[in-house]
């Protein structure tokens, strides 16, 4: 037995090619992100220069062909849709994971997990089509026109639920047996063990899942475009139509020219910065105390 193979601090000669390959992969990934950011900045520069950053927040409305560029209503649309979806999907996703891990009989749990995985695999445009032809008319019967913030929130919640459920499930599966045996030895009830030991121990894993889900909710385009109604406004109620930043880019990019086009890139840049801020905030949060 050659013990040097187990030495991870000093890569052996055999590891060298792999090491360089991995370095190359990491470098490529990092470069792509930086290139995208640079590209966004370059493409949006004409708008930032000619229109000015203040007008993206201060104009009366979004009518880019008539020279008005306020995208705040769409930023709020993105935030409302994502927050609403998270509000629904986080509790139900975690509950689904707890159910399949500790409450369901083994056969049901396996089937249930397959179903959730299936839910994760459905393409977003299928969700959108279903939302447009089934969900929106149903909501429309309650309150016209049906394509609304509520429809967007429901569709997004359905889409991100599997992400949260599956990551929470994987995190719960990784809780060391010793913790659970310890909890059992203390005579804790099942719920006592879950709330006192398992959930605190998997806090950062579940938070990562929520972060992934939030990123997907904010970046989702097609399904939201089909069910939200896409009117640029601040919604007064759940039944009002809204437009998200991503839907705006998808709706107008194919036909936009000049400053209009650049303005769409600015909204893309804003979306990217929002995402960065979120990842940063999550990083700060997860720096708190941790059990596992």
């Amino acid at each position: 037995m050659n013990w040097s193979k187990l030495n991870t601090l000093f890569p052996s000669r055999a590891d060298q090619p792999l090491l360089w390959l991995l370095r190359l992969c990491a470098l490529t990934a990092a470069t792509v992100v930086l290139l995208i950011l640079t590209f966004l900045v370059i493409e949006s520069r004409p708008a930032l220069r000619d229109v000015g950053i203040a007008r993206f927040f201060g104009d009366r409305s979004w009518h880019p062909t008539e020279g008005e560029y306020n995208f705040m209503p769409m930023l709020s649309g993105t935030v409302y849709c994502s927050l609403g979806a998270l509000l629904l999907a986080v509790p139900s996703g975690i509950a689904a994971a707890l159910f399949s891990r500790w409450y369901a009989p083994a056969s049901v749990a396996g089937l249930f997990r397959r179903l959730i995985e299936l839910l994760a695999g459905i393409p977003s445009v299928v969700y959108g089509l279903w939302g447009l032809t089934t969900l929106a008319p149903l909501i429309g019967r309650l309150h016209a026109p049906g394509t609304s913030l509520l429809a967007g929130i429901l569709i997004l919640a359905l889409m991100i639920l599997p992400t949260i459920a599956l990551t929470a499930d994987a995190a719960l599966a990784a809780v060391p047996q010793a913790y659970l045996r310890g909890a059992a030895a203390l005579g804790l009830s099942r719920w006592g063990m879950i709330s006192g030991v398992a959930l605190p121990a998997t806090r950062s894993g579940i938070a990562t899942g929520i972060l992934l889900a939030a990123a997907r909710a904010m970046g989702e385009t097609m399904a939201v475009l089909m069910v939200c109604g896409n009117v640029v406004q601040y919604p007064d109620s759940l039944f009002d139509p809204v437009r998200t930043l991503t839907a705006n880019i998808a709706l107008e990019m194919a036909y936009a020219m000049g400053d209009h086009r650049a303005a769409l890139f600015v909204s893309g840049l804003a979306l990217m910065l929002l995402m960065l801020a979120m990842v940063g905030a999550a990083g700060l949060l997860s720096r708190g105390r941790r059990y596992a």
Partner: protein
Amino acid sequence: MTKKLIFIVFLLLAAWLSWTLWSTPPASSTTRKLVLTGSSTVAPLAAEIGRRFETLHPDVRVDVQTGGSSRGVNDARAGLADIGMASRALKTSEEDLYSFTIALDGISIIVNRSNPAAALSRQQIIEIYTGAITNWREVGGRDAPITVVNKAEGHSTLELFLHHFGLQNRAVKPQVIIGDNQQGIKTVAGNPNAIGYVSIGSAEYEAGHGTPIKLLPLEGVQASVENVRNGSFPLARPLNLVTQSEPAGIVRDFIEFARSEQVRELVEAQYFVPLAR
């Protein structure tokens, strides 16, 4: 040993891949470039026609750029483009140029099939779209709020619609904004109180294939592809190719090709109306 082999094969593959990506095929010195600029409505169709034209004439490269109908006309006049594209007829000040219609574009107002309203006047449509009329009862329908479906900014159908009814987009009060024709048709089919407008070709096709939508007549003229083709439907416009002088050589070949039977299904695929034969 096998791992090393796999690794070497992988490296070679990566090298080959990057080589093919970086190197460009050598340009033929005899390549003739055909430049088209102008209307963003015509451009997708012209690009499709150009692609097919290139396969028939391997020595020609067709370059399509957008910039609006006026740019198309100006570029053709100034000689910056071989052919200009315009989604309108030539104005009287532009009659020194030559124009060739390759297809027609028409828009139909659509409502759900269950909607009892049979026809709307020009004034009623304007008032519905500006929010002055908000209930179908006021225009001969049932007592229900109207869902106004509008197109997203930049679409040529929006432009034609606004222009025809003399509206400003900021005056329109929509409840739903859609991107493409299919989304508009699905929205109206799913909402019994919606009103929208889409390209006539797609609306007629969907209505004929069981989708519950209804094409409303405009100014007494039935909305149909046939009426767009014979020029009686008011909400329509020609899609033109414009040249500075009598077309000759490759330009003439392209225009003849674009007006020929060979591109008919390309025209229909973009929901435009082919010319009468």
